[in-house]
């Protein structure tokens, strides 16, 4: 396919009088690792939910994997995987049951889902715990299971919404290894939102979001050069400083 993985034009969302996302123009290329960096409340999750058709845009348009989010929500949802900030696993089911449940929601026949689930569980180091209830797993394992769930149906575009929130450094590291391997193996487009600057460093391109707008866009190297600073963190602070000072949230 030649269409961009994500193509947003003037995309915006208001919650009552509050503008969460102003007018977003953004093109994410196929197989790109795209970072969406910004402080809390910058409109990152709103953007992801608009692109995933969980929200209806207040203005503008967008297409994901060539499908219009307003007109063809089902096709969009078929093409994407979405790992939410908070886990979507059922704590009273085992990992395997959760994946089977997701496979059925994505209309995968059981005989096709079985081998895929086996492979993912091995790949994600969850094989030995597959029959354990999710409530008994560590945060890192749950996250890994969430991501396995997100790519089970082999999406073209994977959205990761602050995937490392609440994980310890070791779990974080293994999560990034996992995502790197996935991208290398499948050419998957990954759209990552984060407020951790260092997580955006390996991205092909990064958009720095601030109060519902893109404050800066480019490769990490370009952004540093343009701002005349040595680290992406300084770019982040320079572009979003006032917001941080106001909100004071973490």
């Amino acid at each position: 396919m030649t269409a961009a993985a994500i193509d947003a034009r003037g995309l915006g969302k208001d919650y009552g009088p509050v503008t969460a996302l102003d007018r977003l123009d953004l093109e994410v290329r196929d197989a790109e690792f795209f970072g969406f960096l910004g402080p809390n409340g910058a409109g990152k999750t709103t953007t992801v939910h608009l692109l995933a058709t969980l929200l209806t845009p207040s203005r503008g348009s967008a297409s994901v994997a060539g499908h219009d989010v307003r007109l063809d929500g089902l096709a969009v949802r078929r093409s994407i995987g979405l790992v939410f900030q908070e886990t979507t696993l059922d704590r009273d089911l085992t990992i395997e049951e959760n994946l089977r449940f997701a496979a059925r929601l994505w209309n995968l026949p059981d005989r096709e889902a079985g081998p895929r689930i086996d492979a993912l569980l091995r790949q994600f180091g969850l094989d030995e715990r597959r029959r354990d209830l999710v409530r008994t797993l560590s945060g890192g394992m749950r996250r890994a299971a969430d991501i396995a769930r997100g790519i089970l149906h082999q999406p073209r575009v994977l959205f990761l919404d602050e995937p490392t929130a609440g994980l310890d450094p070791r779990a974080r590291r293994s999560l990034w290894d996992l995502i790197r391997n996935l991208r290398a193996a499948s050419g998957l487009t990954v759209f990552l939102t984060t407020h951790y600057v260092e997580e955006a460093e390996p991205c092909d391109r990064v958009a720095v979001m601030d109060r519902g707008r893109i404050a800066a866009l480019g490769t990490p190297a370009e952004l540093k050069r343009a701002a005349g600073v040595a680290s992406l963190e300084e770019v982040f602070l320079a572009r979003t400083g006032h917001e941080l000072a106001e909100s004071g949230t973490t």
Partner: protein
Amino acid sequence: MRAVYGIVVREFVRFLRQRGRALSSVARPFVWLIFAGAGFAAVFAGRSEIDYRVYMAPGLLGMVVMFGSLLAALSTVIDRDAGVLRLMLVAPIRRGTVALGKTLGATLVGTAQAVVVAAILLPVVGLTPTPAGALLALVAVVLLGLALGAIGVVLAAGMRSIENFAGVMNFVVFPMLFLSGALYPVRHLGPVLHVLAHVNPLAYGVDLLKHALLTRWTDAGYGGELPIALDCAALALFALAGLAAAGPLLAREGGVARAAFRERR
């Protein structure tokens, strides 16, 4: 459809896994039979046409379905909190499919409970249904499960948190129960309550169950009172109306990103 099947399976596995919930749902009607049964039997004493505990049996089965299906459907609120609802909403299925899956899952949970309870309760009170009666009772249980399951999903879609649960118990479950004819005939109630009984799905379900189980006592005034077709039609109507309303309600935004945004500000 595979997604509906997946949702139903999940619902049932969850039910079986919650041992306490499964056991108490089966025990509940017997607690009513022993305590409410004793009390009402004393009040009804002197009317020799029917043993009160026999009279109560269809109502208790209706009650089992009500608690089983309604509570299972209300678990959609818990799904929202736990994030599972989000997963269902981001899956490539229609909102109506989610509502249908939850409703059918709730129906299955309520029906399974009713079948287990009936297998113990009917011999205990000495009721032996005819084959036709047993079949009609099963139809009643399934239709009632569908109606209450759909209504439960609608209620859950409108609820923001599990804290509204008590309100549902007080203003939905108990009025439904007391205006259903499960414990006493509603025809003796005043006109206002009598009218309310006619918008009560449980009343139609219990009436249908009485048709199925209390045929022998129809002449004495304890059997079903409404035409069987009307009972079935009313229950089907509740189910369809609930399903039609539940899809759009579940899809209503605000449940997902908006709440997160509000917390941030």
